[in-house]
């Protein structure tokens, strides 16, 4: 027997044990009496925890048993997020990589930190920026500090928006955002914390991420088409930032 089979059997044994306890409770007077209703409710919550009906039941049900399971699910919750989100019992974990938001193609008008630094360096080379090495480094340090502040600030706004999006749609459990706000983040590497994609393991996390993203003003960083100055927009102003 493989370890995968073993885990599956253990899960099945544990599930039988718990449901048998529930069924025995259903026969006790004054306790849980509606076992079928109990099953329908726990299925709705299970579907909500894994990210919706499609996750539990990809594709149309083919066997008679699958049709009944599907019917039990559909009777309690529909396909609409607002219907099944209130059934969720496990917190929603959302990952956020701000560097990926800026550099990953969602906002082609924004410059990532590396590109912003390159632009400062180019200006120095062309004689438009600081004229000494020390002054040039100071200009780069200022850009880095500016990006760090903006990325942190963006993550804070994003958290508030994600929580609000969950609450608006009836979510009764917490929304936890795990954020990488490092502007140097190597978000394209395999081990990096990355933003969820459509088809991710938890569709709720993806949906709330999108809603929070849409509701959150992007980081106030350098624009792709505009020249980058040697300091943050707080001191230099006009040629930085996004809308």
């Amino acid at each position, binding site marked *: 027997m*493989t370890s*995968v089979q073993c*885990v*599956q059997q253990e*899960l*099945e*044994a*544990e*599930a*039988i*044990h*718990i*449901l*048998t*306890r*529930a*069924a*025995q*409770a*259903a*026969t*006790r007077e*004054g*306790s*849980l*009496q*509606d*076992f*079928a*209703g*109990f*099953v*329908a*409710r*726990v*299925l709705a*919550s*299970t579907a909500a*925890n*894994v990210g919706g009906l499609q*996750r*539990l*039941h*990809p594709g149309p*049900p083919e*066997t*008679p*048993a*699958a049709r*009944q*399971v*599907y*019917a*039990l699910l559909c*009777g309690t919750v529909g396909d609409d997020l607002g219907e099944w989100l209130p059934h969720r*019992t*496990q917190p929603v974990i959302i990952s956020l990589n701000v560097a990926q938001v800026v550099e990953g193609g969602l906002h082609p008008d924004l410059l990532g930190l590396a590109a912003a630094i390159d632009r400062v360096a180019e200006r120095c080379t062309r004689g438009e920026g600081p004229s000494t090495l020390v002054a040039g480094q100071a200009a780069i340090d200022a850009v880095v500090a500016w990006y760090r502040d903006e990325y942190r600030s963006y993550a804070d706004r994003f958290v508030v928006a994600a929580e609000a999006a969950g609450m608006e749609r009836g979510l009764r459990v917490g929304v936890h955002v795990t954020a990488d706000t490092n502007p140097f983040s190597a978000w394209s590497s395999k081990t990096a914390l990355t933003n969820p994609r459509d088809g991710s*393991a938890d569709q709720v996390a993806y949906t709330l991420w999108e809603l929070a993203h849409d509701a959150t003003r992007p980081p106030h960083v350098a624009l792709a088409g505009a020249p980058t100055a040697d300091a943050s927009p707080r001191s230099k102003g006009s040629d930085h930032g996004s809308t």
Partner: protein
Amino acid sequence: MTATRRDDTDLYTDTITMLTQAATRHHADGTTPDFADFLTQVLAATAANVGGPDRLVAGRPGSWEAGHLDELLRGTMGNDRADWLWFRTEPVTVSLNVAELIEDDLTHPGLMGLDEALESLGRQYESAAVADLHAWDSDIEDVTARYTTEYLLYADRFTAAACGYARQLPGLTVRIELKADTNPNNAWWTATAVTNPTANSSDPLSLQIWQAAHDATPLPNVDIWPGPPTTSTPVRS
């Protein structure tokens, strides 16, 4: 919140956690196992553990949830009770209270419990012209010892009969656990006592095995009523 409600909440949470775990696990090749198949097997085993699909939908038999659950279970387990045994995963607990068996008028109205036997003995001595107190005491000890031994032996025979019957049930592979109270003075009518199963018991299989064992087991050698019993319900002091 009452203890029962809290228990139910725990059950709800535990069940969701377990099913969520089952729904999110993956095979070694990255594919996801069929959740509907998993759930069907789990529910069939649950139904078998408590005595069949009827028991699971008895709370609200007409509801739409009950309709789907019933169809799901019958489609998997069939309608024949004998087939349900294959799905059972939990041991069958058979409880036996020998004093209840003897003293409950519904089972064996002609048999005397220990108290009744001692009262009967007392009446014999009280009606004698001169009561021999030593002989009376000795008889009380003898009767009590006989009841104690007979109840123990009966429980042994009953256990053997129950296990023998269960072994012959096709598909039943789980353990049979016998919980016996052989104390002839036990208060079997109290809420906390081990009692013999009834039709309203939670597990019909336990009742079926109990009845088969009872029918196959010679009764303990206890006193019998000379005529009809004096009371319909035994009264304990």
